[in-house]
């Protein structure tokens, strides 16, 4: 595999977040004008990652392992602290699905709005609208304000919009398990078809069986570092074995790293 055709290349990417009670005027001024001493945590630490067309990469690890941060870096939501990311083509991101909706607007209006932010034209959205509505199963509620929607409907609509973006690869963050069983199956087959059709995806999930079915490659992360990578089955088996060995490790607090 040469990196020249890769959709995503991460090289030595580190992301540090500051810890603390949030900004005050005093810390803000220090933060803007100096590189003072802050308690920091490395959410992602010197990570290398590649995604080739037609490939699905699964990210596993306990809470705080850095899975979501990697997806947020690739979605250009937050910049890296160190390292280099190369992106070829356009991603469609399924992160925080539903967070981008405005609950006073109707489903139809939200589809128009989200579509525009994803870079779709009005004509493109109108053309795709029937398929989005069908997948989300919200046809009867299309002209109802979103605040009357159930959690499941909001989730399905968010996913359905993202699945209809013309994207070169998808970034999927732990959303599949939140949907009901029949939607999960539908989503799984759609993601599979999308990747076989030349797309690619990076999926972060705690659902190991799902990752095993969807992914070719898996990466096991722990406290921001890559612990293991390789064929999905091998990595996931090893991850399961790790979990069995130290059942208390899930969700353990990370040690803050004092920088400089």
């Amino acid at each position, binding site marked *: 595999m040469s990196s020249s*055709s890769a959709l995503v290349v991460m090289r030595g990417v580190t992301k540090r*977040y*500051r810890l603390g009670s*949030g*900004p005050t*005027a005093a810390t*803000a*001024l220090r*933060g*803007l004008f100096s590189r003072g001493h802050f308690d920091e945590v490395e959410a992602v630490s010197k990570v290398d990652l590649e995604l080739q067309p037609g490939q699905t990469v699964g990210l596993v690890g306990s809470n705080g392992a850095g899975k979501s941060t990697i997806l*947020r*870096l690739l*979605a*250009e*939501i*937050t*910049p*890296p*602290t*160190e*390292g*280099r*990311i*190369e*992106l*070829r*083509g*356009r991603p469609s*991101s399924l*992160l*925080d699905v539903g*967070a*981008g909706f*405005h609950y*006073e*607007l109707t489903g139809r*209006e939200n589809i*128009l*709005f989200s579509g*525009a*932010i*994803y*870079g779709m*034209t*009005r004509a493109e959205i109108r053309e795709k609208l029937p398929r989005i509505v069908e997948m989300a199963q919200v046809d009867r509620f299309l002209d109802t304000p979103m605040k009357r929607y159930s959690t499941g409907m909001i989730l399905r609509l968010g996913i359905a919009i993202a699945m209809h973006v013309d994207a*070169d690869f998808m970034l999927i963050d732990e959303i599949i398990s939140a949907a009901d069983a029949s939607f999960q199956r539908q989503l799984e087959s759609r993601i599979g078809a999308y990747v076989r059709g030349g797309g690619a995806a990076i999926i972060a999930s705690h659902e190991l069986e799902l990752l095993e079915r969807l992914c070719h490659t898996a990466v096991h992360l722990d406290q921001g570092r890559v612990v293991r990578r390789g064929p999905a089955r091998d990595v996931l088996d090893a991850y399961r074995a790790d979990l069995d060995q130290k059942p208390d490790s899930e969700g353990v607090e990370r040690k803050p790293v004092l920088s400089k």
Partner: protein
Amino acid sequence: MAQVKIITPRSHRPLLGIAELVRHRRVLYFLVWRDIKVRYKQTALGAAWAVVHPLINVVVLTFVFHSLANVQSGAQGSYAAFTFGGVLPWTVFAASASRAAGALIGNAHLLGRYYFPRLALPLAACGAPLVDAMVGFVVYLILAAATGQTLAGTVAVAPLVLFMSALWGSAVGIALSAAVVWIRDIRQVLPLLFQAWMLATPVGYPASLVPDKYAFVIALNPMVGPVETFRALATGGPLPAESLVLSAVALVAVGVPSLLFFRAASQRCIDVI
């Protein structure tokens, strides 16, 4: 194969981000559209609020300066129409600036969800005040006609001044929107600042009322240009060329650093917000 996008901690970003914004102009359009749609939903008066706000200012300022302090506008027509001619350009500015200032923290959910040029948020916040001002402009024409104010033919280009006021609002608001993420106190100060600033601008009184020793306040205030120009265009008075040029030059002098600051700060906003 699509072109490569390289992201590093110091990724090369376009200087002011205008070109990127033009590429994503649909986002800008839909943000304004959403603002206008959501704004007066579930209010009894609905879009009429857009007119009620400036009208209340007109009534208060006219009562205080004209009825109580017996100030004369020195121009033909009613004092209320005179005040309206100042309130309109002022309101676009103040509303644009304060709405833009809250645009990043108010849309944190979008920042954490999608990639799009962050500049679209404070800029789009100026859309609704501008639309409100256009409605207000029509009401101004009606009020002027009803109170016997003669309007000049140049009133047709007066909306351009409202556009300039909105630009001033965005120039101030873009930098504020990023600064507010780190220093929330700014949001508490803004209403007071704009109130004081309005009273220091000849909105409810004519500039001729200001004694010589405070003339510098008028000379240094960049909003005097739009306010005086709007009135001059509407009623056919002499154009205040000096303060208009000063305001236009100051607009660039404030706007460019504001964009540069925003570009530097907005990328890291999401980690702090």
